[in-house]
């Protein structure tokens, strides 16, 4: 997977770094990594920048991940960008809510780099 611009959204800066490292370990060649601490900040980032992939937490202050996904298609540079949720919220209801809102994948924390690979690579390849 070459030349991917990713936006990583999580209120934990440590988790953003871990997600970035996991993407690289999964073989994703990241040319640019943008970060946001919540959904509202991420919508602002997308006003200015184009990305190929978004990884998004659910539980965040200001605007949570589900609301972000709902608002994504209404934002410049947001339409059609695949979103994979990475979250501690693991219930079926949350998975269904996220996928219904437009997310293309769902990874539960804690996770391994292999799980990131398993969920992200098909999304980037357009298979999910």
């Amino acid at each position, binding site marked *: 997977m070459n030349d991917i611009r990713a936006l990583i959204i999580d209120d934990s800066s440590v988790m953003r770094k871990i997600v970035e490292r996991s993407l690289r370990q999964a073989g994703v060649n990241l040319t640019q990594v943008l970060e946001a601490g919540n959904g509202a900040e991420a919508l602002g980032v997308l006003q200015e920048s184009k990305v190929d992939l978004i990884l998004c937490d659910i*539980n965040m202050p200001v605007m949570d991940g589900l609301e972000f996904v709902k608002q994504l298609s209404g934002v410049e540079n947001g339409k059609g960008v695949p979103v994979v949720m990475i979250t*501690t919220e693991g219930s079926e*209801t949350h998975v269904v809510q996220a996928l219904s809102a437009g997310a293309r994948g769902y990874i539960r924390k804690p996770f391994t780099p292999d799980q990131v690979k398993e969920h992200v690579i098909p999304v980037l390849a357009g298979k999910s």
Partner: protein
Amino acid sequence: MKSAKDVLSRSKDHEDWIPLLELSAKEVFELMLGSKLDTASEIAPNGFDIAAMVGLAGQLCGILTVRASRESAARMAFKMLGAETEKDSQEVADAFGEICNMVAGNFKNKVSGLGDGCMLSVPTVITGSDYSVRSLAGSPPLELRLQFESLPMLISLEIG
């Protein structure tokens, strides 16, 4: 499938949740830090100068707290990030809070019927040891004594 109400009413003291709490913590440390946690029979109550808390609200209300030393928390952050961090840095507090968050989420997902009926707060991290926390929990906390790289840590769940 059991409802959260069934799950909560089955046991008053929830002692049967301790193995789930232990499994939840061990999975987080193995997957995210590459570390094995050991169970400790006894640990000294002093020396804990960092605590991370995550609130649970909904059909289960309570607080999950992880306590350790700042030295231990810095070591955890190092294992998570693969890079050395100052023990008083924001990054250590962030990593420690995220560990607490993942343990709480993993635990919630393991208790049948609780996944949908309980929300988690964002984590709060307190550094220092000269403080007291007064919870409105109706029963004594469930406590789990563990060792991370021979350093003690304590996980407690207070249920309201």
